[in-house]
C-alpha cells in the first residue's frame, strides 16, 4: 500500500489488511441485513417499496 508500510515490514501490511477485512465485514453485514429486510417485505407484503 503505502511506502511506509513497505519500509516497516509485513506487520504493517497485515494491520492494513485487517482494517480492510473489517470494512468488508461491515459492508457484508449491511448487505445481508438489506437482503433479509427485502426478503421479509416481499414475503409478507408482496412488494418491497410500495405500500399495498
Amino acid at each position, binding site marked *: *500500500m*503505502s511506502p511506509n508500510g513497505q519500509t516497516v515490514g509485513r506487520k504493517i501490511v497485515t494491520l*492494513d489488511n485487517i*482494517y480492510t477485512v*473489517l*470494512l468488508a*465485514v*461491515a*459492508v457484508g*453485514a*449491511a448487505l*445481508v*441485513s438489506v437482503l*433479509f*429486510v427485502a426478503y*421479509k417485505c416481499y414475503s*409478507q*407484503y*408482496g412488494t418491497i417499496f410500495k405500500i*399495498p
Partner: protein
Amino acid sequence: MSTLTKILIVLLTVFSIFLCGIVVTYVANANNYRQMYMGLRVEKDSAVKKEESARNELNTFKDETDRHKRQLNSTIDSLKSQANQLQRDLQTANAEKDDAIRRMSSWEAIVMDFSKTTDSQSQLLKNTLDELEKLRAEQIKKDKELKQTETTLLEKMVIISTLDKKAKRLLEEKTELQNRLNQLLRQYGKIAAPAVPVTPKPEKARTTSVARNIGLKGRVTAVDQKNSMAEISIGGAHGVTEDMKFHVTRGDEFICDILILDVDAEKAVGILDLVQQIPKVGDNASTNL
C-alpha cells in the same frame, strides 16, 4: 493509514454489526400486518353481515313486537272492559247477597213464628181431636138413646092412634046415644043435660121407662191393687158412662164389681167394689151377669 482512520473503521464495523443485528432482530420479530389486516377485514365483513342480519332481525322483531303490542293493547282494553263489567256484576251480586241475607233473616223469623204457630195449632188440633172423640162417643150414646126414644115414640104413636080411633068411635056412639036420648026425652018435654066427663082430665103424657139390659161386655186391661182400681177395654165409644157398674167374672166365678169413675173413648177406669178375688188382666167385665 492514520490512527483516526483505523479508529473510525473499527467503530464503523462495530456499529454496522450492531445496527444490522438490531435491524435483523426487529424485522424478524415484526408483526405481519398484512395478514392481520386481512384477518381483520374478514372479521369486519362477517361483522357487517352479522350487523345486517341483526338489523333485519331487529326490524322483524320490532314489527312483531309492535303487532304483539297492538294485540296486547286490544286484549288489555277488552280485559279492562270485562273487569269493569265484572266489577259492576260484583257490586250487583253483593247488593243481591245483602238483600238475600235480609230476606233470609226475615224468612227465618217468619219460619220460627210459623213453627210456633204450627206447634200451637198441632196442640189445638190434638185437643180438638180428643174433644171430637169425646163428642163422637157422646153422639153414639145419644144416637142409641135417640133410637130407643124413637122406638118408644113409635109405640106411643101407635097407642095414641089406637086411642084416637077409640075416642072417635066413643064420640060417635055418644052422639048417637045423645040423639036417641034427646028423641026419647022430647016426648016428655025434656032434653038431656050436657055430659060431664066422669074420668079426670088427661094430664100431660109421660113416658114410662122400660127397663132393659145394657149388654156391654169387655175385658179387664189393667189392675191397680194399691189404689183398688181397674181399667176395662171399652169406653165411651161403646156406650160406657160414669157411675156404670161392671161385673167382673172369670169363667162362672164372680170376682168383683167395677164402678166406673172416668170414661175415655176406647177405655174406662173404675174403682173395685165387692171384691171376692183380685181381678186379673183378661177377666171378663160385663154390665149384666
